[in-house]
Protein backbone atom coordinates (compact mmCIF):
# COMPACT_ATOMS: atom_id res chain seq x y z
CA UNK A 1 0.00 0.00 0.00
CA UNK A 2 2.83 2.30 0.81
CA UNK A 3 4.15 1.73 -2.66
CA UNK A 4 0.82 2.60 -4.20
CA UNK A 5 0.79 5.89 -2.39
CA UNK A 6 4.26 6.63 -3.53
CA UNK A 7 3.37 5.80 -7.09
CA UNK A 8 0.67 8.42 -7.02
CA UNK A 9 3.20 11.12 -6.34
CA UNK A 10 5.50 10.81 -9.29
CA UNK A 11 8.39 13.21 -9.41
CA UNK A 12 7.79 14.34 -5.90
CA UNK A 13 11.01 13.02 -4.55
CA UNK A 14 13.51 12.90 -7.26
CA UNK A 15 16.77 11.35 -6.43
CA UNK A 16 19.98 10.02 -7.78
CA UNK A 17 22.30 7.46 -6.36
CA UNK A 18 24.23 6.37 -9.37
CA UNK A 19 27.76 7.45 -9.01
CA UNK A 20 26.86 8.70 -5.58
CA UNK A 21 24.58 11.27 -6.99
CA UNK A 22 23.97 13.34 -3.95
CA UNK A 23 23.84 16.57 -5.84
CA UNK A 24 21.33 15.07 -8.17
CA UNK A 25 19.32 14.18 -5.12
CA UNK A 26 19.60 17.72 -3.89
CA UNK A 27 18.43 18.91 -7.26
CA UNK A 28 15.68 16.39 -7.16
CA UNK A 29 14.34 17.66 -3.91
CA UNK A 30 13.64 20.94 -5.62
CA UNK A 31 11.42 19.22 -8.13
CA UNK A 32 7.72 19.67 -7.66
CA UNK A 33 4.89 17.44 -8.82
CA UNK A 34 2.80 18.42 -11.78
CA UNK A 35 -0.88 17.84 -12.34
CA UNK A 36 -0.75 14.25 -13.45
CA UNK A 37 1.39 12.71 -16.14
CA UNK A 38 1.61 14.53 -19.41
CA UNK A 39 -0.01 12.96 -22.46
CA UNK A 40 2.42 10.72 -24.26
CA UNK A 41 4.09 11.93 -27.40
CA UNK A 42 2.90 10.40 -30.67
CA UNK A 43 4.25 6.93 -31.27
CA UNK A 44 7.88 7.00 -32.18
CA UNK A 45 8.60 5.37 -35.56
CA UNK A 46 11.78 3.98 -34.03
CA UNK A 47 9.87 1.74 -31.61
CA UNK A 48 11.16 -1.81 -31.87
CA UNK A 49 14.41 -0.76 -33.48
CA UNK A 50 17.56 -2.13 -31.88
CA UNK A 51 20.74 -0.09 -31.73
CA UNK A 52 24.21 -1.42 -31.06
CA UNK A 53 25.65 1.21 -28.79
CA UNK A 54 29.44 1.21 -28.39
CA UNK A 55 30.53 1.86 -24.84
CA UNK A 56 33.65 2.23 -22.87
CA UNK A 57 34.25 0.92 -19.38
CA UNK A 58 36.33 3.34 -17.35
CA UNK A 59 38.96 2.40 -14.78
CA UNK A 60 36.30 3.16 -12.18
CA UNK A 61 33.84 0.66 -13.70
CA UNK A 62 31.56 3.26 -15.14
CA UNK A 63 29.97 2.80 -18.53
CA UNK A 64 30.47 5.68 -20.94
CA UNK A 65 28.61 6.20 -24.19
CA UNK A 66 29.04 9.02 -26.67
CA UNK A 67 26.37 11.52 -27.52
CA UNK A 68 26.00 14.42 -29.89
CA UNK A 69 24.02 17.30 -28.47
CA UNK A 70 22.27 19.24 -31.24
CA UNK A 71 24.84 17.83 -33.66
CA UNK A 72 27.81 19.01 -31.60
CA UNK A 73 30.27 16.76 -29.88
CA UNK A 74 30.82 13.91 -29.33
CA UNK A 75 30.47 14.06 -25.56
CA UNK A 76 31.01 11.28 -23.02
CA UNK A 77 28.00 10.42 -20.88
CA UNK A 78 27.75 8.03 -17.97
CA UNK A 79 25.03 5.43 -18.30
CA UNK A 80 23.42 5.78 -14.91
CA UNK A 81 20.10 4.26 -13.93
CA UNK A 82 20.64 5.98 -10.60
CA UNK A 83 20.21 9.41 -12.16
CA UNK A 84 16.63 10.61 -12.57
CA UNK A 85 17.23 12.66 -15.70
CA UNK A 86 19.80 13.75 -18.26
CA UNK A 87 22.53 16.04 -16.94
CA UNK A 88 24.83 18.01 -19.23
CA UNK A 89 27.92 19.71 -17.83
CA UNK A 90 28.08 23.48 -18.23
CA UNK A 91 31.20 23.13 -20.36
CA UNK A 92 29.61 20.61 -22.72
CA UNK A 93 26.48 22.76 -22.89
CA UNK A 94 28.63 25.70 -23.86
CA UNK A 95 30.41 23.69 -26.55
CA UNK A 96 27.07 22.47 -27.86
CA UNK A 97 25.72 26.02 -27.96
CA UNK A 98 23.03 25.03 -25.49
CA UNK A 99 21.55 28.09 -23.86
CA UNK A 100 20.22 27.34 -20.42
CA UNK A 101 17.37 29.65 -19.57
CA UNK A 102 18.20 31.03 -16.12
CA UNK A 103 14.51 31.06 -15.26
CA UNK A 104 13.81 27.51 -16.36
CA UNK A 105 15.15 24.51 -14.52
CA UNK A 106 15.23 22.23 -17.56
CA UNK A 107 16.66 23.02 -20.96
CA UNK A 108 15.22 21.41 -24.08
CA UNK A 109 17.63 19.75 -26.48
CA UNK A 110 16.26 19.46 -29.99
CA UNK A 111 18.26 16.41 -30.91
CA UNK A 112 20.35 13.97 -28.95
CA UNK A 113 22.24 11.41 -31.04
CA UNK A 114 23.58 8.32 -29.31
CA UNK A 115 26.54 6.63 -30.97
CA UNK A 116 25.15 3.51 -32.60
CA UNK A 117 22.21 5.33 -34.17
CA UNK A 118 19.57 6.02 -31.52
CA UNK A 119 18.11 9.52 -31.66
CA UNK A 120 16.09 11.35 -29.02
CA UNK A 121 14.23 14.48 -29.98
CA UNK A 122 13.09 17.39 -27.84
CA UNK A 123 14.36 16.01 -24.57
CA UNK A 124 14.70 18.00 -21.40
CA UNK A 125 18.11 18.10 -19.79
CA UNK A 126 19.53 19.79 -16.74
CA UNK A 127 22.61 21.90 -17.42
CA UNK A 128 24.70 21.52 -14.30
CA UNK A 129 28.00 20.18 -13.00
CA UNK A 130 27.21 17.39 -10.57
CA UNK A 131 30.16 17.03 -8.22
CA UNK A 132 30.99 13.54 -9.32
CA UNK A 133 31.69 14.78 -12.81
CA UNK A 134 33.84 17.58 -11.49
CA UNK A 135 35.64 15.20 -9.16
CA UNK A 136 36.16 12.43 -11.68
CA UNK A 137 37.38 14.83 -14.29
CA UNK A 138 39.81 16.30 -11.76
CA UNK A 139 41.34 12.88 -11.32
CA UNK A 140 41.69 12.53 -15.05
CA UNK A 141 40.40 9.12 -15.95
CA UNK A 142 42.29 7.81 -18.91
CA UNK A 143 41.00 9.35 -22.06
CA UNK A 144 37.59 9.94 -20.65
CA UNK A 145 36.50 13.35 -19.56
CA UNK A 146 32.87 13.00 -18.60
CA UNK A 147 30.42 15.49 -19.98
CA UNK A 148 27.16 14.36 -18.48
CA UNK A 149 24.91 11.72 -17.02
CA UNK A 150 22.37 9.73 -19.00
CA UNK A 151 19.66 8.90 -16.51
CA UNK A 152 16.16 7.55 -16.31
CA UNK A 153 14.40 9.93 -18.72
CA UNK A 154 16.70 8.75 -21.52
CA UNK A 155 17.36 5.13 -20.55
CA UNK A 156 13.76 4.17 -19.81
CA UNK A 157 12.88 4.65 -23.48
CA UNK A 158 14.93 1.57 -24.29
CA UNK A 159 15.23 -2.02 -23.28
CA UNK A 160 18.89 -2.05 -22.38
CA UNK A 161 21.01 -5.13 -22.80
CA UNK A 162 24.47 -4.97 -21.29
CA UNK A 163 27.00 -7.74 -21.64
CA UNK A 164 30.39 -6.79 -20.19
CA UNK A 165 32.10 -9.34 -22.44
CA UNK A 166 30.80 -7.57 -25.57
CA UNK A 167 32.00 -4.23 -26.83
CA UNK A 168 28.53 -2.82 -27.36
CA UNK A 169 25.24 -2.61 -25.54
CA UNK A 170 21.97 -3.24 -27.34
CA UNK A 171 19.29 -0.61 -26.87
CA UNK A 172 15.85 -1.47 -28.21
CA UNK A 173 13.37 1.39 -28.42
CA UNK A 174 10.31 0.74 -26.29
CA UNK A 175 6.86 2.21 -26.77
CA UNK A 176 7.40 3.99 -23.49
CA UNK A 177 8.06 7.67 -23.03
CA UNK A 178 8.86 8.65 -19.49
CA UNK A 179 7.11 11.83 -18.44
CA UNK A 180 9.03 15.06 -18.88
CA UNK A 181 10.83 16.19 -15.79
CA UNK A 182 8.75 18.72 -13.87
CA UNK A 183 9.68 22.30 -13.17
CA UNK A 184 11.22 22.88 -9.77
CA UNK A 185 9.11 24.11 -6.93
CA UNK A 186 11.89 25.72 -5.05
CA UNK A 187 14.71 27.91 -6.13
CA UNK A 188 17.33 25.58 -7.57
CA UNK A 189 19.86 27.42 -5.45
CA UNK A 190 18.23 26.30 -2.21
CA UNK A 191 20.63 24.62 0.17
CA UNK A 192 20.50 20.84 0.24
CA UNK A 193 20.42 18.97 3.56
CA UNK A 194 23.63 18.96 5.55
CA UNK A 195 24.43 15.35 4.73
CA UNK A 196 24.18 16.01 1.05
CA UNK A 197 26.39 19.00 1.39
CA UNK A 198 28.87 16.69 3.06
CA UNK A 199 28.65 14.31 0.12
CA UNK A 200 29.01 17.17 -2.29
CA UNK A 201 32.16 18.16 -0.51
CA UNK A 202 33.68 14.95 -1.83
CA UNK A 203 33.94 16.65 -5.18
CA UNK A 204 36.29 19.09 -3.57
CA UNK A 205 38.13 16.27 -1.81
CA UNK A 206 38.66 14.57 -5.13
CA UNK A 207 40.14 17.71 -6.56
CA UNK A 208 42.38 18.05 -3.54
CA UNK A 209 43.44 14.42 -3.82
CA UNK A 210 44.17 14.97 -7.48
CA UNK A 211 46.53 17.74 -6.51
CA UNK A 212 48.34 15.44 -4.07
CA UNK A 213 48.64 12.35 -6.21
CA UNK A 214 48.75 14.06 -9.53
CA UNK A 215 46.25 13.92 -12.30
CA UNK A 216 46.32 10.57 -14.02
CA UNK A 217 47.93 11.01 -17.41
CA UNK A 218 45.93 10.39 -20.52
CA UNK A 219 46.74 7.31 -22.53
CA UNK A 220 48.52 8.10 -25.74
CA UNK A 221 46.66 6.31 -28.53
CA UNK A 222 48.69 5.65 -31.63
CA UNK A 223 47.67 4.32 -35.03
CA UNK A 224 49.34 1.14 -36.19
CA UNK A 225 51.35 1.26 -39.40
CA UNK A 226 50.37 -0.61 -42.52
CA UNK A 227 52.38 -2.61 -45.07
CA UNK A 228 49.58 -3.13 -47.58
CA UNK A 229 49.57 -6.90 -47.88
CA UNK A 230 46.54 -9.12 -48.00
CA UNK A 231 47.20 -12.46 -46.34
CA UNK A 232 45.52 -15.81 -46.29
CA UNK A 233 46.07 -19.15 -44.66
CA UNK A 234 47.55 -21.74 -47.00
CA UNK A 235 48.39 -25.40 -46.43
CA UNK A 236 52.04 -24.63 -45.74
CA UNK A 237 51.54 -21.47 -43.69
CA UNK A 238 50.77 -17.84 -44.41
CA UNK A 239 50.54 -16.73 -48.00
CA UNK A 240 50.68 -13.18 -49.29
CA UNK A 241 47.46 -13.28 -51.27
CA UNK A 242 47.98 -9.86 -52.79
CA UNK A 243 50.26 -6.90 -52.42
CA UNK A 244 48.41 -3.61 -52.83
CA UNK A 245 49.97 -1.64 -55.71
CA UNK A 246 52.16 1.20 -54.51
CA UNK A 247 52.08 -0.02 -50.91
CA UNK A 248 55.17 -0.23 -48.67
CA UNK A 249 55.20 -4.00 -49.18
CA UNK A 250 55.16 -3.56 -52.97
CA UNK A 251 57.99 -1.02 -52.82
CA UNK A 252 60.09 -3.38 -50.69
CA UNK A 253 59.69 -6.24 -53.15
CA UNK A 254 57.08 -8.43 -51.48
CA UNK A 255 55.30 -10.38 -54.22
CA UNK A 256 51.91 -11.98 -54.59
CA UNK A 257 52.10 -15.66 -53.65
CA UNK A 258 55.08 -15.28 -51.31
CA UNK A 259 54.98 -17.40 -48.21
CA UNK A 260 55.36 -15.29 -45.08
CA UNK A 261 57.58 -17.20 -42.65
CA UNK A 262 58.55 -14.67 -39.99
CA UNK A 263 57.59 -11.15 -38.96
CA UNK A 264 60.31 -9.31 -37.04
CA UNK A 265 61.96 -12.66 -36.36
CA UNK A 266 58.79 -14.21 -34.99
CA UNK A 267 57.63 -17.35 -36.80
CA UNK A 268 54.03 -16.99 -37.97
CA UNK A 269 51.80 -20.00 -38.55
CA UNK A 270 48.61 -18.20 -39.54
CA UNK A 271 47.51 -14.92 -41.07
CA UNK A 272 46.09 -13.89 -37.73
CA UNK A 273 49.38 -14.61 -36.02
CA UNK A 274 51.16 -12.51 -38.61
CA UNK A 275 48.79 -9.62 -38.00
CA UNK A 276 49.36 -9.93 -34.26
CA UNK A 277 53.11 -10.04 -34.73
CA UNK A 278 52.83 -6.65 -36.42
CA UNK A 279 50.25 -5.24 -34.02
CA UNK A 280 52.54 -2.64 -32.49
CA UNK A 281 54.18 -1.49 -35.70
CA UNK A 282 54.07 2.26 -36.09
CA UNK A 283 54.21 4.21 -39.35
CA UNK A 284 57.87 4.67 -40.20
CA UNK A 285 58.98 1.50 -38.41
CA UNK A 286 61.01 -0.97 -40.42
CA UNK A 287 59.46 -4.42 -40.31
CA UNK A 288 61.68 -7.39 -41.11
CA UNK A 289 59.86 -10.05 -43.10
CA UNK A 290 61.17 -13.51 -43.95
CA UNK A 291 59.61 -14.69 -47.19
CA UNK A 292 59.81 -17.70 -49.44
CA UNK A 293 58.83 -17.27 -53.04
CA UNK A 294 56.50 -19.75 -54.72
CA UNK A 295 58.61 -22.81 -55.55
CA UNK A 296 61.69 -21.40 -53.79
CA UNK A 297 63.45 -23.36 -51.11
CA UNK A 298 65.51 -20.51 -49.71
CA UNK A 299 64.12 -17.76 -47.55
CA UNK A 300 64.79 -14.17 -48.37
CA UNK A 301 64.43 -11.24 -46.06
CA UNK A 302 62.67 -8.06 -46.90
CA UNK A 303 62.71 -4.86 -44.86
CA UNK A 304 59.45 -2.96 -45.23
CA UNK A 305 58.99 0.58 -43.94
CA UNK A 306 55.44 0.77 -42.62
CA UNK A 307 53.20 3.50 -43.98
CA UNK A 308 50.03 5.10 -42.74
CA UNK A 309 46.59 3.62 -43.14
CA UNK A 310 44.66 0.49 -42.36
Amino acid at each position, binding site marked *: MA*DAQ*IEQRPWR*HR*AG*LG*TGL*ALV*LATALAAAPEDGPKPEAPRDPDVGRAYRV*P*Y*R*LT*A*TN*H*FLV*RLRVNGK*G*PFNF*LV*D*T*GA*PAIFVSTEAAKKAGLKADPEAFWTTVGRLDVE*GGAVLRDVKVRVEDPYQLVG*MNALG*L*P*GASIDGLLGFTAL*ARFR*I*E*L*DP*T*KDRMTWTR*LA*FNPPDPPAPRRNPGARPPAE*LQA*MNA*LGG*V*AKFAAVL*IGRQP*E*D*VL*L*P*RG*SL*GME*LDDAANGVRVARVLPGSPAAKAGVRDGDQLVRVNGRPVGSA*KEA*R*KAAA*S*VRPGDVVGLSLRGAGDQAERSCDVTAGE*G*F
Partner: protein
Amino acid sequence: MNVTPTNPRGPRGVEVVPELSLTRLSRPRKAWGRLSWIGFGLALALVSTPPAVGAPPAPTGAPPAAPKAEEKKPAVVPFELLASNHMVVRARVNGAGPFRLIFDLGAPITLLSPKASELSGVIKKGSARPMLFGARGEERVRSLKVGELTATDLPVVVMDHPTLRVLGGLLGRPLDGIIGFTFFARYKTTIDYAAREMTFEPVEFELPDLLKDLPARLAGPKVARRLVLAPGALFGLAVAEAADNPGAGVSVSAVAPGSPAEAAGLKPGDLLTTLDGRWTTSVTDAYAAAATLAPGHPVEAVVVRDGKERSLTVTPVEGF
Protein backbone atom coordinates in the same frame (compact mmCIF):
# COMPACT_ATOMS: atom_id res chain seq x y z
CA MET B 1 44.84 -11.50 -9.44
CA ASN B 2 47.22 -11.08 -12.21
CA VAL B 3 46.84 -7.50 -13.28
CA THR B 4 49.17 -7.72 -16.22
CA PRO B 5 47.14 -7.22 -19.33
CA THR B 6 47.09 -10.15 -21.64
CA ASN B 7 47.97 -7.88 -24.51
CA PRO B 8 51.30 -8.65 -26.05
CA ARG B 9 53.87 -6.01 -25.40
CA GLY B 10 55.42 -4.59 -28.44
CA PRO B 11 58.84 -3.01 -28.76
CA ARG B 12 59.58 0.33 -27.15
CA GLY B 13 57.27 -0.28 -24.26
CA VAL B 14 54.22 0.09 -26.42
CA GLU B 15 51.15 -1.83 -25.50
CA VAL B 16 49.00 -3.22 -28.20
CA VAL B 17 45.29 -3.04 -28.16
CA PRO B 18 44.12 -6.05 -30.06
CA GLU B 19 40.84 -6.08 -31.89
CA LEU B 20 37.62 -6.39 -29.94
CA SER B 21 39.10 -5.16 -26.71
CA LEU B 22 38.42 -1.49 -26.97
CA THR B 23 35.82 -1.35 -24.31
CA ARG B 24 38.51 -2.35 -21.91
CA LEU B 25 40.89 0.21 -23.20
CA SER B 26 41.26 1.88 -19.89
CA ARG B 27 40.99 -1.25 -17.85
CA PRO B 28 44.56 -2.48 -17.46
CA ARG B 29 45.51 0.80 -15.90
CA LYS B 30 43.26 0.14 -12.93
CA ALA B 31 44.48 3.33 -11.42
CA TRP B 32 41.39 4.00 -9.43
CA GLY B 33 40.04 0.57 -10.14
CA ARG B 34 36.55 0.22 -8.89
CA LEU B 35 36.73 3.38 -6.92
CA SER B 36 33.26 4.70 -6.83
CA TRP B 37 32.29 7.97 -5.39
CA ILE B 38 30.93 5.93 -2.64
CA GLY B 39 34.18 4.07 -2.63
CA PHE B 40 36.20 7.18 -2.95
CA GLY B 41 35.64 8.35 0.57
CA LEU B 42 36.30 4.83 1.62
CA ALA B 43 39.53 4.78 -0.29
CA LEU B 44 40.70 7.94 1.34
CA ALA B 45 39.89 6.42 4.66
CA LEU B 46 41.83 3.29 3.79
CA VAL B 47 44.78 5.25 2.60
CA SER B 48 44.91 7.41 5.65
CA THR B 49 44.28 4.58 8.07
CA PRO B 50 46.62 1.70 8.85
CA PRO B 51 45.51 -1.24 6.75
CA ALA B 52 44.65 -3.25 9.85
CA VAL B 53 41.11 -1.93 9.83
CA GLY B 54 38.79 -2.39 6.95
CA ALA B 55 41.39 -3.11 4.32
CA PRO B 56 40.44 -5.97 2.05
CA PRO B 57 42.32 -9.16 2.83
CA ALA B 58 45.47 -9.64 0.84
CA PRO B 59 44.62 -11.80 -2.13
CA THR B 60 46.16 -15.23 -2.06
CA GLY B 61 46.50 -16.97 -5.35
CA ALA B 62 43.21 -17.17 -7.17
CA PRO B 63 41.45 -13.94 -8.06
CA PRO B 64 38.86 -13.24 -5.39
CA ALA B 65 36.33 -11.88 -7.81
CA ALA B 66 36.53 -14.54 -10.46
CA PRO B 67 33.27 -14.78 -12.35
CA LYS B 68 30.88 -17.31 -11.01
CA ALA B 69 28.42 -18.66 -13.49
CA GLU B 70 26.03 -20.16 -11.02
CA GLU B 71 23.02 -20.18 -13.30
CA LYS B 72 22.96 -21.50 -16.80
CA LYS B 73 19.69 -20.14 -18.13
CA PRO B 74 18.47 -16.53 -18.11
CA ALA B 75 16.95 -15.59 -14.79
CA VAL B 76 14.08 -13.13 -14.59
CA VAL B 77 14.07 -10.62 -11.76
CA PRO B 78 11.11 -8.28 -11.35
CA PHE B 79 11.78 -4.82 -10.01
CA GLU B 80 9.78 -2.09 -8.40
CA LEU B 81 10.11 1.39 -9.80
CA LEU B 82 10.27 3.95 -7.02
CA ALA B 83 8.70 7.38 -7.28
CA SER B 84 12.27 8.55 -7.68
CA ASN B 85 12.58 6.30 -10.76
CA HIS B 86 15.05 3.99 -9.12
CA MET B 87 14.78 0.26 -9.62
CA VAL B 88 14.45 -1.69 -6.40
CA VAL B 89 14.81 -5.44 -6.15
CA ARG B 90 14.12 -7.64 -3.16
CA ALA B 91 17.10 -9.73 -2.23
CA ARG B 92 17.86 -12.44 0.28
CA VAL B 93 21.35 -12.13 1.63
CA ASN B 94 22.80 -15.33 3.11
CA GLY B 95 19.19 -16.47 3.39
CA ALA B 96 18.13 -13.47 5.48
CA GLY B 97 15.83 -10.71 4.40
CA PRO B 98 14.30 -9.84 2.03
CA PHE B 99 16.21 -6.60 1.77
CA ARG B 100 15.40 -3.75 -0.57
CA LEU B 101 18.34 -2.96 -2.81
CA ILE B 102 18.61 -0.35 -5.52
CA PHE B 103 19.83 -1.71 -8.84
CA ASP B 104 22.18 0.86 -10.27
CA LEU B 105 24.12 0.63 -13.52
CA GLY B 106 26.07 3.71 -12.44
CA ALA B 107 27.33 2.15 -9.22
CA PRO B 108 30.72 0.46 -9.50
CA ILE B 109 30.31 -1.54 -6.30
CA THR B 110 27.68 -3.50 -4.44
CA LEU B 111 26.84 -1.96 -1.12
CA LEU B 112 25.01 -3.23 1.92
CA SER B 113 23.92 -1.20 4.92
CA PRO B 114 25.50 -2.09 8.27
CA LYS B 115 22.10 -3.12 9.58
CA ALA B 116 21.38 -5.51 6.71
CA SER B 117 24.93 -6.78 6.96
CA GLU B 118 24.47 -7.61 10.61
CA LEU B 119 21.08 -9.23 10.06
CA SER B 120 22.49 -11.42 7.32
CA GLY B 121 25.65 -12.25 9.21
CA VAL B 122 27.92 -10.54 6.70
CA ILE B 123 29.47 -8.74 9.63
CA LYS B 124 29.25 -9.46 13.32
CA LYS B 125 27.53 -6.90 15.43
CA GLY B 126 29.99 -4.17 16.33
CA SER B 127 32.76 -6.17 14.72
CA ALA B 128 34.57 -3.31 13.09
CA ARG B 129 35.13 0.32 13.80
CA PRO B 130 33.23 2.40 11.28
CA MET B 131 35.25 4.84 9.27
CA LEU B 132 34.10 7.62 7.00
CA PHE B 133 30.34 7.32 6.38
CA GLY B 134 30.27 4.21 8.52
CA ALA B 135 32.26 2.31 5.94
CA ARG B 136 33.90 -0.88 7.10
CA GLY B 137 35.70 -1.99 4.01
CA GLU B 138 34.99 -4.91 1.78
CA GLU B 139 33.21 -8.00 2.98
CA ARG B 140 31.92 -11.05 1.18
CA VAL B 141 28.39 -12.32 0.88
CA ARG B 142 27.96 -16.09 0.61
CA SER B 143 24.77 -15.83 -1.38
CA LEU B 144 22.60 -13.05 -2.73
CA LYS B 145 19.29 -14.19 -4.17
CA VAL B 146 17.14 -11.94 -6.32
CA GLY B 147 14.15 -13.39 -8.14
CA GLU B 148 15.30 -16.65 -9.73
CA LEU B 149 18.92 -15.71 -9.51
CA THR B 150 21.48 -16.58 -6.84
CA ALA B 151 24.93 -15.05 -6.88
CA THR B 152 27.51 -16.57 -4.58
CA ASP B 153 30.69 -15.24 -3.04
CA LEU B 154 29.94 -11.62 -3.88
CA PRO B 155 32.15 -8.78 -2.64
CA VAL B 156 30.16 -6.02 -0.93
CA VAL B 157 31.09 -2.80 0.74
CA VAL B 158 29.37 -2.39 4.10
CA MET B 159 28.49 1.23 4.45
CA ASP B 160 25.86 3.51 5.81
CA HIS B 161 25.39 5.52 2.65
CA PRO B 162 23.92 8.95 3.39
CA THR B 163 22.12 9.30 0.09
CA LEU B 164 20.52 5.92 0.55
CA ARG B 165 19.41 6.88 4.03
CA VAL B 166 17.92 10.17 2.85
CA LEU B 167 16.16 8.54 -0.09
CA GLY B 168 14.78 5.73 2.05
CA GLY B 169 13.53 8.30 4.52
CA LEU B 170 11.82 10.34 1.83
CA LEU B 171 10.10 7.33 0.37
CA GLY B 172 8.99 6.13 3.77
CA ARG B 173 10.61 2.72 3.41
CA PRO B 174 14.20 1.92 4.19
CA LEU B 175 16.63 0.94 1.49
CA ASP B 176 19.25 -1.60 2.44
CA GLY B 177 21.87 -1.18 -0.24
CA ILE B 178 22.85 -0.88 -3.85
CA ILE B 179 23.48 -3.59 -6.39
CA GLY B 180 26.22 -2.36 -8.68
CA PHE B 181 28.85 -3.38 -11.18
CA THR B 182 30.42 -6.15 -9.10
CA PHE B 183 27.11 -8.00 -9.29
CA PHE B 184 25.81 -7.26 -12.76
CA ALA B 185 29.18 -7.62 -14.52
CA ARG B 186 28.80 -11.37 -13.97
CA TYR B 187 25.85 -11.39 -16.31
CA LYS B 188 24.45 -10.21 -19.56
CA THR B 189 21.91 -7.88 -18.03
CA THR B 190 18.73 -6.76 -19.77
CA ILE B 191 16.61 -4.00 -18.27
CA ASP B 192 13.08 -3.50 -19.49
CA TYR B 193 11.43 -0.54 -17.81
CA ALA B 194 8.14 -1.15 -19.59
CA ALA B 195 7.93 -4.75 -18.36
CA ARG B 196 9.52 -3.80 -15.04
CA GLU B 197 11.83 -6.73 -15.11
CA MET B 198 15.46 -7.57 -15.62
CA THR B 199 16.96 -10.74 -16.99
CA PHE B 200 20.40 -12.08 -16.23
CA GLU B 201 22.46 -14.58 -18.19
CA PRO B 202 25.83 -15.60 -16.77
CA VAL B 203 28.91 -14.59 -18.73
CA GLU B 204 32.59 -15.10 -18.11
CA PHE B 205 33.96 -11.73 -17.20
CA GLU B 206 36.94 -11.15 -15.00
CA LEU B 207 36.29 -8.50 -12.43
CA PRO B 208 39.08 -6.26 -11.31
CA ASP B 209 39.77 -6.14 -7.61
CA LEU B 210 38.45 -3.35 -5.45
CA LEU B 211 41.00 -0.96 -4.00
CA LYS B 212 43.76 -3.50 -4.30
CA ASP B 213 45.94 -1.51 -6.61
CA LEU B 214 45.39 1.84 -5.03
CA PRO B 215 48.44 2.00 -2.75
CA ALA B 216 50.69 0.85 -5.57
CA ARG B 217 49.13 3.37 -7.85
CA LEU B 218 49.65 6.18 -5.39
CA ALA B 219 53.30 5.27 -5.10
CA GLY B 220 53.85 4.41 -8.74
CA PRO B 221 55.05 6.62 -11.56
CA LYS B 222 52.52 8.64 -13.45
CA VAL B 223 53.49 7.86 -16.97
CA ALA B 224 51.03 7.93 -19.79
CA ARG B 225 50.64 4.56 -21.43
CA ARG B 226 51.28 4.33 -25.12
CA LEU B 227 48.70 2.16 -26.78
CA VAL B 228 48.76 1.15 -30.41
CA LEU B 229 45.35 0.74 -31.96
CA ALA B 230 45.72 -2.22 -34.28
CA PRO B 231 43.05 -2.54 -36.96
CA GLY B 232 41.54 -6.02 -37.12
CA ALA B 233 41.66 -6.22 -40.89
CA LEU B 234 42.98 -4.52 -44.01
CA PHE B 235 40.86 -1.83 -45.70
CA GLY B 236 43.40 -0.05 -47.90
CA LEU B 237 42.50 3.32 -46.54
CA ALA B 238 44.40 6.24 -45.07
CA VAL B 239 42.70 8.96 -43.08
CA ALA B 240 43.65 12.36 -41.72
CA GLU B 241 42.08 14.86 -39.35
CA ALA B 242 39.50 16.98 -41.15
CA ALA B 243 40.71 20.47 -40.35
CA ASP B 244 37.60 22.22 -41.66
CA ASN B 245 35.22 19.76 -40.00
CA PRO B 246 36.52 19.03 -36.52
CA GLY B 247 34.50 16.43 -34.68
CA ALA B 248 32.39 15.51 -37.69
CA GLY B 249 34.64 12.89 -39.22
CA VAL B 250 38.03 12.14 -40.74
CA SER B 251 39.15 12.97 -44.22
CA VAL B 252 40.01 10.05 -46.49
CA SER B 253 43.52 10.92 -47.63
CA ALA B 254 44.23 7.85 -49.75
CA VAL B 255 42.50 4.78 -51.10
CA ALA B 256 44.76 1.94 -52.23
CA PRO B 257 44.07 0.70 -55.74
CA GLY B 258 42.47 -2.72 -55.72
CA SER B 259 41.74 -2.52 -52.01
CA PRO B 260 38.47 -3.31 -50.22
CA ALA B 261 38.07 0.43 -49.65
CA GLU B 262 38.25 1.13 -53.37
CA ALA B 263 35.87 -1.72 -54.14
CA ALA B 264 33.41 -0.19 -51.68
CA GLY B 265 33.53 3.12 -53.53
CA LEU B 266 35.47 5.18 -51.00
CA LYS B 267 37.27 8.12 -52.58
CA PRO B 268 40.01 10.47 -51.42
CA GLY B 269 38.42 13.61 -50.05
CA ASP B 270 35.44 11.77 -48.57
CA LEU B 271 34.59 12.67 -45.01
CA LEU B 272 34.33 9.36 -43.18
CA THR B 273 31.87 9.87 -40.32
CA THR B 274 30.93 6.36 -39.20
CA LEU B 275 32.47 2.91 -39.49
CA ASP B 276 30.28 -0.02 -38.46
CA GLY B 277 28.11 2.23 -36.32
CA ARG B 278 31.04 3.85 -34.54
CA TRP B 279 31.70 7.52 -34.97
CA THR B 280 35.03 8.31 -36.55
CA THR B 281 35.45 11.81 -35.21
CA SER B 282 39.26 11.67 -35.20
CA VAL B 283 42.03 9.53 -36.65
CA THR B 284 42.28 7.77 -33.30
CA ASP B 285 38.55 7.10 -33.41
CA ALA B 286 38.81 5.64 -36.89
CA TYR B 287 41.55 3.24 -35.77
CA ALA B 288 39.57 2.38 -32.66
CA ALA B 289 36.61 1.50 -34.87
CA ALA B 290 38.79 -0.52 -37.25
CA ALA B 291 40.33 -2.36 -34.31
CA THR B 292 36.97 -3.92 -33.49
CA LEU B 293 36.43 -5.32 -36.99
CA ALA B 294 37.32 -8.71 -38.39
CA PRO B 295 38.30 -9.79 -41.92
CA GLY B 296 35.54 -10.96 -44.22
CA HIS B 297 32.64 -9.26 -42.50
CA PRO B 298 30.90 -6.51 -44.47
CA VAL B 299 30.41 -3.28 -42.50
CA GLU B 300 28.81 0.05 -43.22
CA ALA B 301 30.99 3.08 -43.86
CA VAL B 302 29.16 6.41 -43.86
CA VAL B 303 30.85 9.17 -45.83
CA VAL B 304 29.94 12.72 -46.71
CA ARG B 305 30.83 13.62 -50.28
CA ASP B 306 29.80 16.91 -51.92
CA GLY B 307 27.69 17.66 -48.88
CA LYS B 308 25.71 14.46 -49.31
CA GLU B 309 25.74 11.54 -46.93
CA ARG B 310 26.33 8.12 -48.48
CA SER B 311 26.27 4.69 -46.97
CA LEU B 312 28.87 2.32 -48.42
CA THR B 313 29.53 -1.31 -47.63
CA VAL B 314 33.12 -2.37 -47.22
CA THR B 315 34.39 -5.87 -46.58
CA PRO B 316 37.91 -5.72 -45.18
CA VAL B 317 40.31 -8.59 -45.80
CA GLU B 318 42.92 -10.35 -43.68
CA GLY B 319 46.21 -8.53 -43.72
CA PHE B 320 47.93 -5.39 -42.58
